[in-house]
């Protein structure tokens, strides 16, 4: 059976489990602790299916990583920051500047540009879901790794400053910025969700499978989720907005000495 088919079957089963969870949640007078609930759901997946949904994305990503593109090359020919084909710990260094594209790239963008430059795909041939899976596969080689995003190259420093400015930009009909929630009110809750600051490790759990949404989220997806929840239309994938915000958050997390969670993570 193909990985994709396996994933579909698994997800259908799980959506059901999540619904049951939700019913329990609304019937209780005390709110469930979101972390405990995530652990409970994770356990349930393992017991029921013997595998976590995130791991199926890893498998699918691996297949796609070794698939030949129109140029006849696989993604082994792409340098993700530590040399061609080196995946161990590569994600923990990103975003960084790449001389071959002349750009600062996060992992998702790097996958996207290598699929074009190295593998010869046209932009319109590249499916977002494939980039998600490949990103998850590569990130899995940085599971629990120490985050090491230290802007040094002038373009990295410029990207950091850009990210910081976007972080504080208040806009839209909800008058929000990332900073008002994730700095000023870090440690408090929106509804039941506790909010973290970059210095508390914000961003160290992506890519992750979110059981509440029954989807895999990369960092760019997660940023988009916050933008949409504050009435700002999400920026396009692989744009500097995503890269700059990611660089800013992970550079701050680096200063505070944080490591990634088990990747892909399992969360609400």
């Amino acid at each position: 059976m193909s990985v994709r088919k396996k994933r579909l079957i698994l997800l259908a089963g799980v959506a059901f489990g999540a619904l049951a969870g939700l019913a329990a949640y609304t019937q209780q007078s005390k709110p469930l602790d979101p972390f405990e609930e995530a652990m409970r759901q994770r356990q349930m997946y393992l017991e029921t299916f013997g595998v976590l949904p995130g791991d199926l994305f890893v498998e699918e990503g691996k297949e796609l990583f070794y698939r030949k593109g129109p140029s006849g090359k696989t993604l082994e020919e792409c340098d993700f920051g530590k040399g061609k084909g080196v995946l161990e710990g590569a994600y923990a260094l990103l975003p960084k500047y790449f001389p071959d594209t002349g750009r600062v790239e996060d992992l998702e963008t790097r996958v996207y540009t290598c699929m074009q430059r190295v593998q010869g795909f046209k932009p319109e041939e590249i499916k977002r879901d494939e980039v998600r899976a490949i990103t998850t596969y590569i990130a899995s080689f940085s599971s629990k790794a120490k985050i090491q995003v230290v802007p040094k190259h002038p373009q990295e420093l410029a990207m950091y400053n850009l990210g910081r400015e976007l972080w504080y930009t208040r806009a839209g009909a909800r008058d929000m910025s990332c900073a008002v929630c994730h700095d000023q009110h870090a440690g408090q809750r929106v509804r039941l969700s506790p909010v973290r600051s970059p210095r508390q490790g914000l961003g160290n759990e992506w890519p992750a499978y979110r059981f509440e949404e029954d989807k895999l989220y990369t960092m760019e997806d997660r940023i988009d989720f916050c933008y949409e929840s504050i009435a700002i239309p999400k920026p396009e994938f692989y744009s500097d907005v995503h890269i700059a915000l990611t660089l800013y958050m992970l550079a701050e997390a680096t200063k505070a000495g944080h490591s990634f969670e088990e990747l892909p993570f399992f969360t609400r």
Partner: protein
Amino acid sequence: MRRKAVLAFGVLLLGLGLSQGPFRARLEAAIQGGGPRFAQVMLSQDKAQALCTQYRDRLPADLVPKFLEEQKALIKYPASGKLMGDWRNGEKVFTDPKRGNCYACHAGDPKEVAHGTMGPSLTGYGQRGQSEAVVRYTYEKIYNAWAFVPCSLMYRGGVHGLFTPEETADLVAFLLDPNSPINRR
């Protein structure tokens, strides 16, 4: 009409921004790179949003009086002049994620346990009574939170048209009416 004004203002700021040098230009290019829908919202900040961004939400003291005055001037009132409406409808607006969405940050009806903690609890808010001053403050605060606390986390729901002046009065009733679940024991 208002949208046009905001847009015009955005364009104005854009002009100012470009004259502020290469960083601003680079920022705007990055925002444009996020696509037209994203850029439309991010580049039409009003003056208050731009100030809060510039000062990282801590306005210098000498800018505060004018800021508050300008925010006060944005408050509109119901044609009837009544600042306290129907608490039942107020509860709907309070709960609706697309309108008030107040539970995101505030406790209210003690039966609702899935509430945020970023704002102060509003449970028992009606203990302040219903004097003219309390009603007016509550109305104006909900319509435009920034008329009291510059750059507050709490958004200016009335100013942005998330709820109407009449719905604002309903929200006031939800907070102040002794029969509202916020105040019942």
